[in-house]
Structure formats: C-alpha cells, structure tokens
C-alpha cells in the first residue's frame, strides 16, 4: 500500500500515557480501559485492514454520561479521540492513531424501546443493523437501510457513514430513515436531536451528523423509523448479450416510471465467478446480468414485472426469468451476494472500489473500466447497484508483486476520477475515511473544503475528534489505497459484501 500520511504524532500525549490511563480508569470502570498490547491488538484496524495503527488506550464506556466525561477529560487535556462502532467500515474511518484514545461503543448494545405505535425503535448505537429488523419482524415491520454487512455493522456506524444498501433508490439511506440521535460533542456536551417526530425544526443537525464519519460528535443513541413489510416482493433475473443493451434496459426501466425496490447489475466476469462460487444458476453466456426486485401490492408488482419484461425483450435480452416464489427470489440473489468472496477465490488480492455515477452513464462507465483493465493488464469484475448508480468494481491482482500493486492503485484512482467526470461522486456508500481522503479534491475545490473544515472547527475547535480522516491533510490529489484484500483474508471474511 502507499504510505499513509497521518496527523503529526503528539509526543507529549504519548509520554503521559500512564497519567491518561489512570485518569480514565477513574472516570469509568477500570476494567473498561484497555492498554495492554494483547488487549488492544483487535482494535488496530477496521475493515480497511491494509492499514494498522496501535491506539494509545482503548476505552469502552457503558453510558452517555461516561462518554461525556471521557470527552471532557480529553478536551481539557488535548487528547485526540477516535470513535469506533463495530469496526466493519471499508474506508478506514475508525483507524486508530498512536496518540489517540480509541473510544469503542461496543458496550452500547441494547435496544432501549420498541414503539410500534409511533413506528420507531430507540436503540443504543452498538446494536447491529439487522438486529433492529429482528426485534420488530414478528409484527411484520423492518428497518429499511440494509448495508451488505448488516449482520455485523452497528447502527451508530451506519449513522456515521450514512450507510445505504440495495434498496436505497426506493427507501433512501440512513439519513432518510432516522428520527433522532443523541450525540456527545468533543467538549462533553450532550445533545439530543429530533426524537419520535418526523423532521425537526431549525438547522438540520441530524442531517449534518449523519455521514460525518465520527468527526463532529460521538453518537450515543439513535431513534430509527420502522416500516411495514411490503405485501409482496418479486424479482426478475435477466441476461443481456452486450453491455450496451443491458445498460440501455436499465435506463429505460427508470425512465418508464418504475421505481424498483432493488436493481443490480453484474458483468460477465462476475457472472462466471459467482456462478462457479455459489452455483447460482446464472446465464453464463450473458455479458451483463440484471436483477430487478419489485415490491408493493400483488397486482402492482405483476403489472410492473410485465413492463420490465417487455423493456428487456425490446433491448434484446438473452434470458429472462421471473421468481415464482420466495425461494426462487432468494436464489436470484445468492450469486450476487457472493460477489466479493467469489473474486477473492479468483486472485490472491482484490481491491473493492466504491463510486456513484448517474444511471444513464452505466454503459460508458463499464466500457471505460474495460478499457482501463486492458491498459493496466489487470482483470476487473463489476457489480453495480444500478437502481441508485452505485458502482463496485473489484480489481484483481497479486499484492506480492509491487508493480501490480502500484498499477492497481493507479487503476482504482482512475476509475473514481472517471466517476466524477461522468457526473458522479467518489464514494457511494463506503465513506471517505482515510481511503479516499486525497481524492476529495477531485470533487471539491478549496472553498468547498474550507467551508466543511470551518464547520468542523466550529464544533471541535481543537480538532481532536477523529482527526486525519475525510479531509486531505496535504490537499493533494494522490492515489491512495482502496479496500485491499489479500488471499481472501478480508477483515470479517464471513460478512457478505455486495
């Protein structure tokens, strides 16, 4: 990996480690303050495992007041703090710093209230995304945003990253599905924003916090909106002989007024890889595979599926299958959900990219990536949340070959730059973290970035909360790393990633 520039280490802080440890052990239960090398080892990295840093101390507070007391102490003593949820983030947002306290929200793991009457759940931030749905599904409710890592990622982390998922086009991302948050500011101030009401008045602080990657406050409570399950969900699995025809059908579906619950695309390399890996029964002759999922009332879904079918036929699809039952629908998804491990099985290493483009530019983007793949002589498999324009190219390479590694990084940066050129953005759902920090200037000029830094400064004037993340330290457009997976040894290899 390229060398990572981190904020200058404050030696004075490191020198007073003992003092810090002792004081923290007074603020919270001393058992929840970890400093021994063996104890803090698991916290050295998040799911961007290529980078590791040893934190000064790890603290695991148990309630909001403790978080406030810790932050107040750190604020007064000028100690940096890195917040961490489940550590499943792919952009290094929770990467520790040598001279910073790592504040783990792992003990905030309880659902506090399930309120069916007001259609919301009040929860602590360490609760996993999926367990919220589990807690309400007996009454046919669910929590809509479904990042692929939902079995392990925490809801607090989801708020920090504004996580999306497969169903974002219809149901929005985290920011559209939360009603309230409690946050603790760097100076220890506890602030409640929103509650069980729709919207809030005044400045939309919740909108600001959501997606702020742990730079503005520590999330200690979240109130999420829950939705009733749709009456029926059905899917279509469609193969296309060319990228152009598949891309054309995708655009036409949206243009015809259909808003699918989910719409996914895979290219030929990924069709073959996933079919080998998961025996999903995909049409291997297709250049492009499209999965369209629709939900609603029975007649509505059937009508829309008819429309989707006729659009696909018009665009010369080579195969078309409609799910007859729930089992078949899930089988359509089986291969798609195995996309990442399937790539891991094909090459010693892969980089997972994350960018967004306008849906209509899909063909252009895929052809550009194909061209780049030839230029860099590296294979790439593409999956794409086509409904919301979120692209995940997976570049395969051998990390032991330094030249290949260098080329891969260049390749990745070129893809993201192409996303911006096509009217998109450098990250769709993985966040900026440290991974894409230096690419921020592809999208923003100095004034744009300065405004964001001014907000940060107004809420954390000493720049102590998660410093070195999101905003370029040197303001240079360098080519930094992507998600680097070596010999399928992904951090949390069991987590589905798609």
């Amino acid at each position: 990996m390229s060398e990572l520039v981190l904020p200058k280490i404050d030696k004075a802080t490191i020198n007073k480690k003992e003092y810090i440890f002792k004081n923290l052990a007074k603020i919270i239960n001393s058992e929840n303050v970890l400093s021994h090398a063996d104890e803090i080892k698991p916290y050295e990295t998040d799911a961007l495992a290529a980078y590791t840093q040893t934190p000064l101390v790890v603290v695991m507070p148990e309630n909001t007041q403790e978080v406030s007391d810790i932050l107040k102490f750190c604020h007064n003593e000028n100690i940096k703090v890195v917040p961490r949820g489940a550590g499943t983030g792919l952009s290094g947002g929770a990467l520790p710093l040598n001279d910073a306290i790592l504040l783990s929200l792992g003990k905030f793991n309880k659902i506090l209230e399930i309120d069916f009457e007001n259609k919301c759940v009040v929860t602590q931030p360490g609760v996993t995304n999926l367990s919220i749905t589990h807690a309400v599904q007996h009454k046919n409710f669910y929590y809509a945003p479904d990042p692929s890592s939902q079995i392990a990622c925490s809801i607090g982390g989801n708020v920090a990253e504004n996580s999306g998922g497969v169903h974002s086009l219809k149901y929005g991302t985290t920011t559209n599905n939360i009603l309230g948050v409690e946050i603790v500011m760097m100076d220890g101030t506890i602030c409640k924003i929103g509650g069980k009401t729709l919207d809030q008045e005044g400045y939309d602080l919740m909108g600001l916090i959501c997606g702020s990657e742990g730079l503005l406050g520590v999330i200690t409570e979240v109130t999420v909106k829950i939705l009733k399950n749709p009456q029926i969900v059905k899917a279509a699995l469609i193969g296309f002989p060319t990228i152009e025809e598949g891309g054309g059908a995708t655009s036409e579906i949206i243009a015809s007024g259909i808003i699918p619950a989910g719409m996914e695309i895979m290219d030929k390399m990924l069709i073959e890889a996933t079919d080998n890996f998961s025996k999903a029964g995909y049409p291997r002759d297709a250049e492009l595979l499209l999965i369209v999922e629709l939900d609603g009332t029975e007649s509505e879904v059937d009508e829309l599926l008819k429309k989707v079918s006729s659009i696909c036929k018009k665009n010369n699809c080579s195969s078309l299958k409609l799910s007859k039952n729930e089992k078949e629908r899930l089988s359509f998804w089986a291969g798609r959900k195995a996309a990442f491990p399937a790539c891991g099985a094909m090459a010693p290493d892969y980089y997972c990219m994350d960018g967004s483009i306008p849906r209509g530019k899909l063909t252009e983007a895929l052809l550009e990536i194909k061209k780049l793949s030839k230029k860099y002589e590296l294979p790439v498999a593409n999956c794409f949340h086509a409904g919301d324009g979120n692209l995940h190219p997976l570049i395969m390479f051998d990390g032991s070959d330094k030249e290949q590694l260098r080329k891969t990084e260049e390749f990745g940066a070129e893809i993201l730059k192409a996303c911006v050129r096509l009217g998109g953005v450098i990250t769709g759902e993985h966040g900026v973290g440290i991974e894409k920090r230096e690419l921020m200037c592809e999208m923003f000029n100095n004034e744009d970035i300065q405004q964001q830094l001014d907000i940060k400064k107004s809420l954390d004037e000493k720049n102590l909360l998660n410093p070195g993340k999101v905003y370029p330290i040197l303001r240079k457009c360098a080519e930094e790393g992507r998600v680097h997976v070596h010999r399928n040894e992904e951090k949390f290899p069991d987590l589905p990633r798609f």
Partner: protein
Amino acid sequence: MFTEMKKNSQIFQDSNNTYYPEDELEVSNVIKELYKKNLPTELIGLGTKNFIGNKIQSAKKLSLSKLSGVVEYLPEELYIKVKANTPLDLVEKELEKNDQELAFEPIDFGFIDGGKSNKGTIAGHLSCNFVGSRRFKVGSMRDHILGFRGVNGKGDIIKSGGTVVKNVTGYDLSKLVTGSFGTLVALTEITLKVLPKKKLSNTITINTEDKKLVNKLFEKISSSSSEVSGAVYIPEEPKDENFDHNKEMVFKFNDLEHKGSFLALRIEGDKISINEKIKSLTDELELSKLDKTILDVHQSTPFWKKINNLELFKQTKNNLLRAVLPPSKGVKLMKYLGNKYKYYIDWCGSLYWIEVQSKKNAKVGEIKNLIKELGGYLTIIKISNEYDHEETIFTVDDTRLLISEKIKKSFDPKRIFNPGKMYRGI
C-alpha cells in the same frame, strides 16, 4: 480591487437598497462587498413566505429573483437542476411534461397570505422545508435535495452533494441548508430528486367525531402495507365568530355530503391497484362498520390540493401554528384543542395546523408548552397583527441553540444573512 468595486457598482441596486445580481458570480461579488462593509442583509426571492420567521432589521436587501431557469432536467435520471430562484410553478409544469413530480407536495402558502395561489421559488421552499400530506410516506424536502451551489457569508462560492442519490462524500450540507431560512447560504443552484407521478388517486372519507377512533385509525393506516399516501382529520369548526367558517365551502364535493368532522385517506396507483388497496383497507380498518364515502379521482385530486394549499386558513388574521408530535400523543392534544380552536391534522396523525384567535395570544405559549411536554415541536407560522409576541418562532433547547450559533458563524461569521430571522441574536 478597483475592478471588483467597479463590477459591484454595475450590479443593479434599486431605491430600496436592494441588489439584483444576475448570476452566481455577481451574487458572490455583492456579498464580498457586504461582508467587507459589515452590512446586515435580507435575502429575498419572490417574498411569498416572507411572513414566516422573526422580522429583521437590515441595511440592504439581496434579491435572488433573477437567478431563475432550469439548468438541466434528466427525467430518466430522476433529477432536475435549477437556478435556485426558479418559480415552483415553472418546475412543476416542466415535470408534468414527463409525468413526474416533486413527491413531497410543496405547500402553496399564497392562500394564507393573499387568498390565492402564489407558490414562490424552489429556494424559498427549500429554505422553509414545510411540506404537504405525502411527507409521512416519502419524506420532506430535505429528503429530496441531492445537491446545491450557493454563496456563504464571506462571499465564497460553495457546493455540496451532486446529482446522484447515493453520496457520502463530505458533510451533507444539502440537509443543513434545507430549512435554514436563508441564514447560512445565498442559494444559487439546487438539484432535486423527482419521481414518477402516480396515475390516479381515490380518497376514502370516514365521518366521525370520536377522537379516540381517529387516533386508532391513524395508527392502523400507518401500520398498513396498502401504501396510503395521505391521511388527514378535519374536525368540525368552532362556533366562535373569530374564526372564518369556510370548511364546507373549501371541501365542497359531490360525494362529501357529511357536514361534521371527517377523516380522509388517499390511495394512489392505477385503477386495479387502487381497487386492490381499497379492498385490503376495508378489512384492515373495518370500514364496513364505519360511515364512509369514496371520492373518485376528479374529487380526490382537488381535495388534496386544497389540503396542501392550507385553504382552511385562507387569509386568516389570526395566529397560525404548526406542530409536529409523536402520533400516539395526538389524543391528548385533540382533547386540549377541543372545539375551541380551528385546526386539522395531517401526516397520518403527526402534524397539526392550529389557528389561535388573535385575542387569545397568550394561548400560543400554553400550546407550545404542551407540545414540548408531548415530545413534539411547534413553529409559529403566522402572527396576528395584534400579537406583540415574545415567543421564539421555533422550539429549540439551549444546547441546540448554542450549536446552531456555532454553525451559523461557520457559514456567515459576521451575521450578514437574515440576522435574527430564526433565532434572535443568531
């Protein structure tokens, strides 16, 4: 510097000390000048919602009305990019051509103020973030903004967001400027998400005075998977002569013969799916036991227009309040309001529009305290002429106020834009 000054002097300024810049660069140049001279400035569009918020003292006015027009509309990409002060009317007409719409149903505040439609601009709607009946289903305006360009209080041109739905690149400033009443940024360009227009709508009206039943029905509607896209309760008007008695006139429809209180819910889609939804709602809400009617599409469409035009409060001289609370607390508020106030409930039991007669101004404070107790918030939308009010326009606690002040300073360090419009002193 000389060139810059010269440029500014060329920007048209009328006798009311109002600047009329014609493009983003001119906006930036004017603001740089105002910043340098430390001149508090009122940002104005078409002025249709000017009555909302505290009155402000300003040395200058900055009209952004010339920044108007569609920049880019890609129906298949589900977005429209417009210059910030494009009239809403124009945008709606443009979307209509492609059977698309702004799904959040912008409120036409023209009826309250002038008695007729006057929709204002996109930037004006964004600055208020007050939306209509479909909110509980599709989100408010803040959920439909994809990106913006604008000029901050120092005169720097800034942008955030883009044209795609999924975007986690940097802080989501688009949300922050939504509902900020022009106190953070002079908006120059806005990109909004658009959605396909539903083909048809039908409305079921249920006649009832029973407030507990109303609350129960709201609960059942919001728990239903039949995708109800509007649910309001219109209670009988108070007898008091200080309120305008226009309910029967506003909701005059052939199939709505009932004169008392009623609940109305909207179902949208094509004919088959509407029938399917009505059938399942008949079971879920036990409609056969209730006194109900169905308004066909010819009545349903204008019915919801009238709701979202706030026509019940047309040209009111009284105070108008907007309260949002957790729906389960509705019964308590309905009990308090009784038949002493003119009000109606929207957003399936979450949103209350309440008219308080000018003679009972002190009641505004009392209602606000009750709403706070119930876990909600209250915004004063319109103040009667006789009301020398001390209440804050918004409900906000000290901590949030402090944070708001810091955020304001980060955008507008010298408090040039609309000082005190939202919170006095900020």
